[in-house]
């Protein structure tokens, strides 16, 4: 039986990071993944990541996947693809299906990074073709370039629902609505806002009643629910859609850990009981990433590194002191990601009313997906200034700070605490370079120039749709809710390598719409 110092199961963000860390320590490492492509969910994630620079913030998920893979390959990690691990047996031996046969391998350390799979809720007609998981939609469009459908109802307003909803729009799919049984949007407000401003309605306190159709989905019926999640008669609504996309949460894919005999605990799905280094109740078996508890890919990468380093320490590839130093830095990086109003401790909290800075949270954002003009002016990213200046519509404490470093002219400040709201510095000089707009993973930064022409202002917004409107084209400006506000003329379109596929669209609108026009459509 071939023996490796470390066998990593799952080549996603956690698995690749673990293998890199272990290989850097000089360990002989193999990674197994059942998919054709490594990277796990990263290759479906075409949006820019949150976090700080060390978390690879503002880089798109699939690019991070490519970077990690290149790094692993450089370190001579054996990456086995199309290789499904089907069992873990005694003494860290595993059975793998690979090249039409089952093979057995043994590892000094096993790092299990099998990720998560989507939860589903049953409803009338949920077995019809056309009812799919949000992950399935992502796989179809972002990996295979195939449209999941023409018109979609998204069920679930967590980050997955919001991000996949936006990606569907980018792929050219129409979204009838995003519904959620909860009374508040579960994901980041900025993710909701970029969908809402295109005109997608959010129906909170709504649940799906039925997928209609005989052979496949031809429509969907939804209904409003009361505070006890019971349907309210007479509130049924119908949508003509061909696809119903389910984004109702994730559960760790922990079967292998259970087969191995690791002690498990219930935490929104079964997760292994691990120590701070990710080691399970069985010495030499580690868990990292979503399988150890659902978080973002950014934290999975750090978790993977910790497990990789801990396995290196366990088998004497690194010294205790070196490990401790490494661990301290990684732990700090993880702590940064685990702050803010969406962190584990705050998940499910419904009584949050203000930001860490004491500014009232926008109920409109939580209930409808968009901010109201009167609310936005209270935030430190919105200042009235002469000339062109950024308007930062970032109103929740999320761990993210690329805008601060994107501006080379010190117009934007977040400070040490990366969940703090960005502040536009009063006496700074904006050069209209657009880097902040393109670097904001939440697409929440706009450039406003109120001095442009008599009676008109120019608004620069991030734009990630095709085709790009050409300069001189006249169309309609939409507000944050996607409602038409006025006519608008495109006066500029900037693309640059540094913008990484976020185009900067500048439109001219009458000055009274300076603080309401936030999107453009033909």
């Amino acid at each position, binding site marked *: 039986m071939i023996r490796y110092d470390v066998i990593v199961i799952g080549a996603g963000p956690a698995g690749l990071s673990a293998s890199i860390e272990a290989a850097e320590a000089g360990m002989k490492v193999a990674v197994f993944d059942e998919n054709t492509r490594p990277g796990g969910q990263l290759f479906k994630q075409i949006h820019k990541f949150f976090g700080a620079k060390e978390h690879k913030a503002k880089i798109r998920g699939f690019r991070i996947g490519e970077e990690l893979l290149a790094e692993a390959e450089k370190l001579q990690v054996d990456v086995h693809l199309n290789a499904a691990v089907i*069992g873990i*047996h*005694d003494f860290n031996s595993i*059975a793998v299906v690979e090249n039409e046969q089952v093979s*057995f391998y043994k590892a000094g350390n096993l790092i299990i990074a099998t990720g998560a799979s989507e939860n589903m809720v049953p409803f009338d007609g949920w077995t019809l073709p056309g009812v799919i998981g949000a992950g399935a939609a992502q796989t179809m469009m972002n990996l295979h370039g195939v449209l999941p459908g023409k018109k979609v109802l998204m069920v679930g307003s967590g980050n997955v629902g919001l991000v996949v909803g936006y990606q569907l729009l980018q792929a050219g799919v129409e979204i009838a609505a995003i519904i959620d049984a909860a009374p508040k949007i579960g994901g980041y407000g900025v993710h909701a806002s970029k969908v809402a401003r295109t005109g997608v309605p959010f129906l909170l306190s709504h649940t799906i009643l039925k997928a209609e159709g005989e052979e496949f989905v031809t429509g969907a019926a939804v209904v409003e629910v009361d505070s006890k999640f019971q349907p309210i008669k007479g509130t049924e609504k119908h949508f003509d859609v061909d696809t119903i996309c389910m984004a109702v949460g994730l559960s760790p894919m922990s079967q292998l850990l259970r087969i191995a*005999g690791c002690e498990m605990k219930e935490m929104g799905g079964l997760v292994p009981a691990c120590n701070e280094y990710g080691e399970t109740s069985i010495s030499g078996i580690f868990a990292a990433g979503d399988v150890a508890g659902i978080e973002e890919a950014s934290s999975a990468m750090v978790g993977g590194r910790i497990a990789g380093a801990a396995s290196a320490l366990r088998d004497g590839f690194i010294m205790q002191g070196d490990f401790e130093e490494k661990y301290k830095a990684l732990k700090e990086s993880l702590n940064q990601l685990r702050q803010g109003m969406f962190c584990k401790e705050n998940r499910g909290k419904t009584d949050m009313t203000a930001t860490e800075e004491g500014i009232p949270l926008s109920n409109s954002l939580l209930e409808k997906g968009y901010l109201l003009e009167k609310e936005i002016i209270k935030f430190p990213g919105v200042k009235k200034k002469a000339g062109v200046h950024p308007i930062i519509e970032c109103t929740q404490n999320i761990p993210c700070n690329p805008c601060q470093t994107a501006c080379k002219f010190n117009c934007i400040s977040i400070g040490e605490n990366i969940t703090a709201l960005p502040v536009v510095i009063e006496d700074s000089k904006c050069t209209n370079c657009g880097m902040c707009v393109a670097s904001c993973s939440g697409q929440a930064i706009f450039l406003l120039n109120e001095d442009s022409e008599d009676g008109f202002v120019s608004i620069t917004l991030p734009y990630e749709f095709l085709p790009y409107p050409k300069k001189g084209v006249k169309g309609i400006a939409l507000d944050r809710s996607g409602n038409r506000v006025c006519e608008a003329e495109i006066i500029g379109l900037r693309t640059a390598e540094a913008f990484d596929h976020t185009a900067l669209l500048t439109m001219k609108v009458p000055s009274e719409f300076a603080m309401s026009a936030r999107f453009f459509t033909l």
Partner: protein
Amino acid sequence: MSNQCADVVIAGGGVMGNATAYYLRKKGCSVIVLEEEMLGNGGSSRNGGGVRQSGRDNRELPLAIYGIGNIWPHLSEELGVDIEYHQAGNIKFAKDERGVEFYKKVVEQNLKKGLELRMLNQAETREICPLVSDEIIASCYCPSDGHANALMTTLAFYKRARELGARFITGEKVLSVKLHKGRAKGVITSRGNVYEGDKIIITAGYESRAILNSVHIDVPMRRKLIEVIIIEMQPKIFPMMITIPDYDGGGYGHQTDHGSFVFGGHIPLENYLRPEEKEVTQLITTASNCNQLVSYFPYFKDAKVIRSWSGWTDLCQDEVPVIGNIDEVPGLLTACGFTGHGFGISPAVAACLSELAVDKEPSVDISGLSYSRFIM
């Protein structure tokens, strides 16, 4: 600590315990069944589902004949659950002369006990079981044998007994038998609870040994792991139970009503598992089972294994169970040490235990299976 009483207290909620509870309720006795894990956690749910007479030791053969003649045919109806019993025959394959000779002896022995059993040549074998490999030269066929769904049977007895008022408590591990004036009068559980009864029946599989040890009774048995693979749903292929002789690696299986195929086999390493080994599938056993299945039925090569499971069998020293009253301790009964072939006789065993528990003569002569056989 609660004290609870019934006419009969049963330790072990497997098929033996559940069925005994059912027959006792039919007789009007109050019953408490105590189970450490869930119902049917042990060998009851971890066996091939064979309901077989052929090849059985003369001491337990009457139980098999009685069950197939009197209980199994109407059990689904009786319990109100389809337990998927089919009297579809059992066929044992021989690849060489050694096998032929072996089975000829089995036929001879079983015929003496009145069991209809015959040798089939290659052509006859293929006629009733067309998918079998060309390497099979003969078989031994018993048409009155069959199979049932062991999971359903175990739970159906439980369900019906519960409906009839038997009390089942899970999460209660029986540690010891409690005596009163020299008679078994109750059991004590690991939670410290005491359950009292006029009759105490221990049907706890291998764990029966430790419980019986508390009153200085020791059934000579050891555990052995078995492993089974489940093949995805197939069209109806053949109805009978198949048996591969132990000298050729062993194996047994049948197609379920659902269409999946259940196949169990052995690897030599099972006898040498570490003592602390848990009930988990071993690294190479599934692969070994796959090869064994294909060597007898090449048909299955492209079918998919969808799961495997393992379970303990409790091997008794002389390969037949211990059933009945334990004379040394009045009021104490047991049924354990089934050596991997208990399921097929479980209803008959339970019927006998229920009769013994009410001081009646059992319907089947089980005197040869008494614990007293180990007392020199």
